[in-house]
């Protein structure tokens, strides 16, 4: 929306009183004066992908180990298990994969079953790592990990170059519009740190990425086993002028820092209507809160400021933002929240909006910037699906569709094709099987304000859910293809 998001605006808490701050809790005791410890930068989420023997677990283990995120007791447990299993022929080497394989079946069978989340921090950033297994249900796992990722680290074995699995992972990553892709050309030590080999792989992967519409790509030569270019720049690759993997991860923009223009449109799915009506929070004066009505949600994209014109969708009513409320921080240990009124807030912040007019807005509706490429609500649209259901998708299937905070009945009116992962083109299909990527046309029981996934990831995404079992059937992306627009067919309000 209009106002530039500056640091000052982000943290501004004082504004002309619209909800009478003097009626909020007043903490009269002396505030605590301890200096808070420094907050470790921003939060960066990334996913790893690769085929079976690319050394992904070793790379993840190396990252965690070299970033000092493995503590002594974890290392001891892994060392003990490695020795018990005779890993490395009794050489004392540890199987770094054991650091992430947590389930009994995984440890017993030596496989990775499910996405594992790991956490580490440097002095620049905190990281959430979604470690996605490559071989079992790779689409399901990669889609899950990539859906929330600011970056994907894709492993390629330097000895084998770009293989089919690499193309598939890259296709999924591109379809999910992950803002940053880093290709780690691993086992570079096993090709004698050859620049020529690296350049060939780099050229090939760049070409594939361009075809797929990957936005930002970096290619790094690494040896997870030896630690080359993982955390520290390697002495063995003087021809590589880029940064080591961890330094790149520290500097890449997050999803919310990426993109421009339409990507910054304000979108706010309403989660919950807050009406205290007598049941007020600690320290809040109930008398003065009788008429309070706030719309709670997490900003999906863009920025909102007090005074902005907004539109409520799908109904299309317009109004003005009167206030942006958050609870704020108590001034003493165990104290009540003082209440803060922000001038501006940006994605991905959770806030509560107050609107100027007395509109009856409900959960499931979307508040959008009135000038921000407002999506026309539709009841029929084209989409890409990653099919995750055990049973194949058949045309005319009846499902539930969850978009933002709205869940509506829907029907798959036609299956328009399946992505051929060899050619990346749509091939005719009459059904979609587990792990297929496909194109479909959907019809919904009521209109939805859909963004094209290519423009806005969070409000262009949806789930298909089995109404009987409740299982998640598909990850859905609004729009025909990367770069394509939403096809509006019918049902405009």
């Amino acid at each position, binding site marked *: 929306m209009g106002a530039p998001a*500056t640091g000052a605006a982000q943290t501004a808490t004082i504004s002309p009183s619209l909800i009478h701050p003097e009626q909020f809790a007043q903490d009269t005791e002396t505030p605590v004066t301890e200096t808070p*410890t420094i907050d470790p930068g921003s939060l960066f989420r990334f996913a790893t992908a690769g085929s079976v023997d690319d050394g992904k677990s070793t790379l993840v283990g190396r990252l965690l180990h070299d970033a000092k995120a493995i503590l002594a*007791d974890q290392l001891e447990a892994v060392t003990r298990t490695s020795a018990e299993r005779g890993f490395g022929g009794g050489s004392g080497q540890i199987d770094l994969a054991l650091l992430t394989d947590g389930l009994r079946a995984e440890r017993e069978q030596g496989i990775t079953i499910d996405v594992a989340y790991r*956490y580490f921090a440097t002095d620049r950033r905190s990281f959430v790592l979604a470690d996605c297994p490559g071989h079992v249900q790779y689409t399901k796992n990669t889609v899950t990990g990539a859906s929330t990722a600011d970056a994907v680290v894709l492993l390629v074995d330097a000895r084998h170059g770009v293989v089919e699995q690499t193309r598939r992972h890259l296709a999924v990553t591109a379809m999910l519009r992950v803002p940053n892709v880093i290709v780690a050309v691993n086992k570079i030590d096993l090709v004698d740190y050859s620049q020529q080999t690296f350049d060939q792989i780099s050229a090939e992967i760049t070409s594939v990425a361009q075809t797929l519409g990957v936005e930002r790509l970096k290619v790094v030569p690494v040896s997870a086993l030896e630690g080359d270019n993982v955390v520290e720049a390697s002495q063995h690759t003087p021809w590589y002028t880029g940064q080591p993997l961890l330094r790149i991860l520290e500097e890449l923009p997050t999803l919310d820092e990426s993109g421009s223009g339409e990507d910054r449109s304000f979108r706010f799915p309403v989660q919950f209507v807050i009406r205290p009506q007598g049941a007020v*929070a600690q320290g809040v004066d109930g008398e003065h809160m009788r008429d309070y009505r706030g719309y709670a949600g997490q900003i999906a994209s863009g920025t909102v400021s007090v005074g902005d014109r907004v539109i409520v969708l799908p109904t299309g009513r317009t109004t003005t933002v009167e206030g942006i409320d958050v609870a704020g921080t108590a001034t003493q240990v165990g104290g009540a929240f003082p209440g803060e009124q922000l001038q501006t807030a940006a994605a991905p912040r959770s806030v509560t909006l107050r609107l100027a007019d007395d509109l009856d807005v409900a959960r499931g509706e979307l508040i959008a910037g009135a000038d921000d490429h407002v999506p026309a609500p539709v009841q029929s649209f084209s989409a890409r699906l990653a099919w995750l259901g055990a049973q194949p998708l058949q045309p005319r299937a009846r499902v539930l569709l969850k978009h933002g905070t709205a869940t509506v009945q829907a029907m798959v009116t036609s299956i328009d094709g399946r992505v051929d992962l060899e050619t990346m083109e749509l091939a005719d299909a009459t059904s979609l099987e587990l792990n297929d990527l496909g194109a479909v046309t959907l019809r919904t029981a009521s209109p939805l304000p859909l963004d094209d996934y290519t423009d806005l990831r969070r409000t262009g995404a949806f789930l298909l859910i089995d109404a009987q079992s409740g299982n998640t059937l598909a990850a859905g992306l609004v729009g025909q293809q990367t770069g394509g627009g939403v096809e509006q067919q019918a049902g405009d309000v």
Partner: protein
Amino acid sequence: MTQVDLSAQQDPLSPQPLGTGEQTALDALESESIHIIREVVAEFDRPAMLFSGGKDSVVMLHLAAKAFWPAAIPFQVLHVDTGHNFPEVLDFRDRTVERLGLRLVVASVQDYIDDGRLTERADGTRNPLQTVPLLDAIVDNKFDAVFGGGRRDEDKARAKERILSLRDEFGQWDPRNQRPELWNLYNGRYTAGQHVRAFPISNWTELDIWRYIEREKIELPPIYFAHQREVFRRDGMWMAVSEVSAPRQTETVEHKQVRYRTVGDMSCTGAVLSQAETVGDVVAEVAVSTLTERGATRADDRLSEAAMEDRKKDGYF
């Protein structure tokens, strides 16, 4: 050829960043957790939040209070009392519940032992005994979603559990049959007999929790800070001398300056030697710790590498 910016032509990074650089990791985690809590409250009929008075549940409850402010927290809190809890923590629990005007449901392991529905284990540990009273409380109160303060960095099994975790009527977790969790679109649908466990602070680390406690001025039970206590050494841990954890003949009682890194059943929760008297001291201590919190303080998790997974499969948190 090593680094290519494919977006350079058509989609340059805006010269003016969006401003989320101002949102720190703690801000991002707070917003994510509040979003999860609001989703669950909006989509379920009768949610409840597990609240033990331990630091993770205190932070989770704080986030719930923020999520609905200026309204009160719109659900009940539930505590599974092993009968071996630290008195300081129970006192803190009751004061917090009163301060926030909450309704507390207590499921008592002691009651189950007294009337014979459960039998005391040979090792005296009551953690595994919590599952049955928990499941009964869920059924009796018709709770359809239960918030838990589990964090994925605590344990390798927890690292693989979804934020919304579907449980069958026995409370069992089926790790091989989890729903994919996509974007921030949580699917909380369940069928008759099932319920959902929701873990809104899944992505927080121990250090995040402490930094947030410091930033938000959150009150904690006193045993999280360094104090003098009669302790004895067992299995490499410092155990408190109490009615439920008495030293054996070979174990010597000593006076030590200790604090608790986790707070659970007195019979299996160890203290750590510490001089950390303030939240700031604890943050500094945790930041340089070379042991995980469960590794350092929980006897029950040392049983095997898959101890947590086995308990979760049996319906545990």
